[in-house]
């Protein structure tokens, strides 16, 4: 790493500032402009939100994104298929494993390969574990934004148990990079099944704890009930998906409706919906989804089929010409890859559809007329991840 002089460093920063200036000319005849972010705790990263206020009330709001844009769709074009999973792990960094699966499934669809049942079941288990690790952080985070800091400590504590299980199986705490075209890298380690079952019990205890500590809290309820109501038709019009949509009462879950070969329809679980569509509903739906995920993991661990974990795949992976679209229900919502192959070692073009991008599109609509503290509640309850928005 070459050390630059301070003069050079300043020149770099100034050039970028001149280059990336956002011209947001809000007419401030009445009211004032408030800048939230780009580094604000409620934005889960680097989302900038410009609010135009009349006193404490929001007149209009504009989210500015792009602070985390890393050029994924362009980078993927110069990577080979096995290299792509390393990158796409980092789109939604809280549920990394869930990002690999749709891409691998799309490549398998193009190559006409099907992973053996054991691999599909383990994929589903890891998918649900990453969902638990993602949403358990949300539960603590939402409480933290509303002002209850201790819930965040509990969430971090219990999330570590899940991360331990992911690490034991895949070798990575955060970014497993465990999925291969045609199966998985390795089989499960010894004793993993029993450990995971014990972990699932801990997670169910965590859900109970959060229900009494956060959900039953009067202050929490006052700050979330009736705040940021998104009716079902608006949610559908903005293309929202995942728990945000289910909290508006739409019964829609790709895990049930379109399981794309994974093992969700092999076990008994429910799609959770809530009719209210407010911030409390979004919190409640996600908390119940953790419970459902633990149920799915328990049942899949019981009936895990024996057999190989890898199908017969050529050593050098070349994907035949064609196009494929695979979408799965990620922790944040619908995530899909549209892969175009021209027969080379890497994809010709990949379109990545991520859930958060559509989920935050509703922010200007839903924040109109609310008070400033409620903006934080709404942002926290919509639950987006910046890597998932900007890619």
């Amino acid at each position, binding site marked *: 790493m070459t050390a630059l002089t301070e003069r050079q460093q300043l020149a770099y920063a100034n050039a970028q500032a001149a280059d990336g200036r956002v011209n947001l000319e809000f007419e401030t005849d009445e009211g004032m402009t408030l800048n939230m972010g780009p580094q604000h705790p409620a934005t889960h*990263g680097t989302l900038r939100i410009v609010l135009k206020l009349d006193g404490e009330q929001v007149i209009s709001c504009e989210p500015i994104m792009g602070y985390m844009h890393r050029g994924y769709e362009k980078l993927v074009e110069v990577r080979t298929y096995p290299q792509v999973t390393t990158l796409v792990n980092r789109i939604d960094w809280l549920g990394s494993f869930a990002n690999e699966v749709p891409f691998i499934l799309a490549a398998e669809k193009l190559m006409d390969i099907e992973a053996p049942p054991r691999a599909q079941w383990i994929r589903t288990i890891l998918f649900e574990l990453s969902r638990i690790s993602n949403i358990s952080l949300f539960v603590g985070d939402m409480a933290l934004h509303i002002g209850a800091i201790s819930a965040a400590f509990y969430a971090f504590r219990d999330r570590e148990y899940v991360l331990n299980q992911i690490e034991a199986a895949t070798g990575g705490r955060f970014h497993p990079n465990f999925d291969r075209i045609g199966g998985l890298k390795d089989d499960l380690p010894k004793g993993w099944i029993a450990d995971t079952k014990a972990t699932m019990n801990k997670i169910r205890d965590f859900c109970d704890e959060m229900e009494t500590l956060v959900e039953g809290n009067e202050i929490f309820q006052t700050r979330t009930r009736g705040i940021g109501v998104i009716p079902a038709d608006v949610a559908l019009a903005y293309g929202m998906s995942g728990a945000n949509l289910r909290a508006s009462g739409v019964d829609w879950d790709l895990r049930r409706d379109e399981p794309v070969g994974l093992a969700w329809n092999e076990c008994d679980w429910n799609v959770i919906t809530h009719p209210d569509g407010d911030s409390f509903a979004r919190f409640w739906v996600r908390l119940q989804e953790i419970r459902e995920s633990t149920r799915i993991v328990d049942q899949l661990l019981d009936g895990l089929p024996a057999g190989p974990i890898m199908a017969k795949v050529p050593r050098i992976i070349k994907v035949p010409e064609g196009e494929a679209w695979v979408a799965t229900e990620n922790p944040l919502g619908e995530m899909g890859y549209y892969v175009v192959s021209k027969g080379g070692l890497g994809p010709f073009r990949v379109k990545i559809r991520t859930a958060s991008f559509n989920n935050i599109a509703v922010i200007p609509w839903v924040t109109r007329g609310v008070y400033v503290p409620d903006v934080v509640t709404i942002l926290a309850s919509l639950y987006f991840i910046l890597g998932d928005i900007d890619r």
Partner: protein
Amino acid sequence: MGLVESGKLPKPLTSLLNTSRKYSLWIFQWGLACCAIEMGAALGAPRYDVMRLGVIPLPASPRQADLVCISGTVTDKMVPAIRRLYDQMPDPKYVISMGSCANCGGPYWDSYSVTKGIDQVIPVDVYVPGCPPRPEALLEGIVLLQERIGKEDMAARWKGDPIVVS
């Protein structure tokens, strides 16, 4: 220039100052991407608990911070804000660059929008490699920085090579 900055302080006073500085680091969390979650685990989670090392994780603003931890992918759009907040921090100030992206661009080394290393914008004291580094690695970086601060000669600040956690 005060007596402290000039480096003409008597030795026992310097070491007293250094000891008190190294155990009261206010760390400003500049969490950007994946590493931010690991930083959160290191600083906020009960398993790692950074406060036992004498580091206080939640300053209200960079103007109250001694140490900034840049964790995650830095894009060119973010760079001016980072430089501006670094300039707002009072001296003496230290920078931890956490994760491959902040160190050198990491897996986005050929991306058009990612800054290839935060050291192009601000001086870095500790590099913590990894993608993302485990929370233990960040704590190791902080401990090494504290050792450095304990031995610091006030006049010779910024003259040492950066620490690389390995």
